[in-house]
């Protein structure tokens, strides 16, 4: 008996000594475990699968870089890549438009809070719903129909026009993104340094020059965040494409995110290896942004420590 109490005592003193060192790991354990299993490991696993020929059921065959070589000759891959680029470039418009809206709405009139929330509305709603709304909107027998008739474009369906369908989807996708950028800038405008603005005004800065030289630099954190979320938003275009066109007509609205899904998990086949190769390309593109973001955060962490 005395022996056992002795052990308990020693245990607790060992714990007391190492508590500071061990506690963070105990707290990290569940989160880190889940994250490693569901996020980190799958990334490497996908990169490995991209070297296989595999339908998900029968034994996989190692084929080296064959999938990537096939990508080089795949017309749909290039269409998707080009569409991703269109998404990215046009999505960037959400940043200045959001800024414009924020400046426009940054007033204190009766009901402005409600008005700002209503402007923000599209972001709260699911992209699936936004996609359905715009499909209905674009339908020549739908909401836009009467207007199309007036301008002599009756029965024009943008989503069925392989030259313009992508722009139709991007327009729908950018709608909630503008709302997001707007809210970022509204917060930024709310936290401006009043003294600097007043000093600027004293010096005679007005309108555009005040905006360019004093306001915009102060909005830099908001701009940075707006660009980061917009780039990521533009690369996550899956929902909109899936709802509005499923990549059609003739694959003209495909983006990497949707093309990958289609290759790996749809009636067009279960080509896990090829799908993973597409995902790997998408991942590589995204990685540049992630590293850029991490680098920025690391810099500010170093300053903070």
């Amino acid at each position, binding site marked *: 008996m005395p022996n056992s109490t002795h052990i308990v005592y020693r245990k607790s003193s060992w714990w007391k000594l190492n508590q500071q060192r061990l506690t963070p790991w105990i707290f990290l354990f569940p989160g880190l475990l889940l994250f490693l299993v*569901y996020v980190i490991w799958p990334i490497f696993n996908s990169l490995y699968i991209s070297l296989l020929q595999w339908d998900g059921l029968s034994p996989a065959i190692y084929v080296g870089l064959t999938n990537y070589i096939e990508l080089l000759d795949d017309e749909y891959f290039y269409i998707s890549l080009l569409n991703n680029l269109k998404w990215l470039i046009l999505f960037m418009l959400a940043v200045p438009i959001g800024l414009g809206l924020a400046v426009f709405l940054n007033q204190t009139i009766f009901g402005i809070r409600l008005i700002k929330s209503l402007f923000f509305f599209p972001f*709260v709603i699911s992209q699936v719903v*936004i996609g359905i709304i715009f499909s209905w909107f674009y339908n020549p027998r739908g909401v836009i129909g009467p207007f199309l008739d007036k301008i002599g474009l009756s029965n024009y369906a943008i989503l069925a026009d392989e030259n313009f369908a992508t722009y139709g989807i991007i327009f729908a996708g950018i709608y909630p993104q503008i709302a997001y950028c707007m809210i970022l800038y509204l917060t930024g405008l709310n936290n401006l340094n009043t003294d600097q603005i007043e000093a600027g005004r004293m010096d005679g800065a007005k309108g555009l020059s*005040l905006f360019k030289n004093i306001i915009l630099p102060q909005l830099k954190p908001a701009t940075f965040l707006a660009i980061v979320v917009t780039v990521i938003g533009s690369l996550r275009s899956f929902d909109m494409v899936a709802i509005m066109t499923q990549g059609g007509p003739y694959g003209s609205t495909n983006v990497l995110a949707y093309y990958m899904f289609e290759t790996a998990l749809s009636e067009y086949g279960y080509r896990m290896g090829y*799908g993973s190769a*597409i995902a790997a390309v998408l*991942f590589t593109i995204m990685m540049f942004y*992630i590293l850029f973001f991490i680098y920025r955060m690391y810099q500010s962490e170093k300053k903070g420590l």
Partner: protein
Amino acid sequence: MFPIPIQKRPLINRISYKILVPVSLFIWLIPLIGIMLTSIRGLGDITAGNYWGIPSEFLLFSNIKDVFQNTPMLSYIINSFKITIPTVIGAVAISCMTGFALASYKFKANLFIFFTFIAGNFVPFQILMIPVRDLTFQMGLYDTVTGLVLFHVAFQTGFCTLFMRNFIKALPNELFEAARIDGTSEFNIFLKIVVPLTRPAIAALSVLIFTFIWNDFFWATVLIQGQHAMPITAGLKSLNGQWVTVYHLLSAGSIIAAVPPVIMFFLMQKHFIAGLTLGASKG
């Protein structure tokens, strides 16, 4: 204050601003107004092409009733709640712990782990898709709510950890030090000091994650197949395929799907925006 408060402008500007704001709001919301109008119409209006005129019948409630009676909408909504609520609780609870660990302890791997969480959070879903689907299959959780929730919790842990860590880091460190000197154990510091102080962050994260997960479509498509576990986003998509011509019902369904996140947003607006704009005002 930028721009100059409208009250300090000439009368003419003030008046035109007050007209311009509601007008632009109306234009901005045209797509949403369009779908709301459609949802109260009957089939007669739709086939007659009356999309913008005054609805000839007010059928919102009967359309909603139709949707619930003729489609599995009710079970989709219940599934959405069954997926969303456990995910919110799980992700927030786990990230309180990870956030605390990364914010208040110095150890070698600290920043590395923190950045791993952030980087993972930005990764495109497609690079995770096949392994996660396989894993879920192997655990026997494919096509179940549990399988989807487990993944969501894991993935959201990235963003939530970033959020909680930065919030806890901004708390005064003296609080923890004082408690330690008093002999409070690390677990009690977490439970009695950190958790109560992070309540605003917990609220902000909860509304954000609720909205993200409620609106998730991709993972619902990848990990769920049958109606019994399908959330409302995937459900709407399948209705979209079946109902090409009955847009009034589809509109009613879309509105039903949008209601919970919209209510959440209006009730918790301050927290929601605080969460989204984290970092927008400071470097």
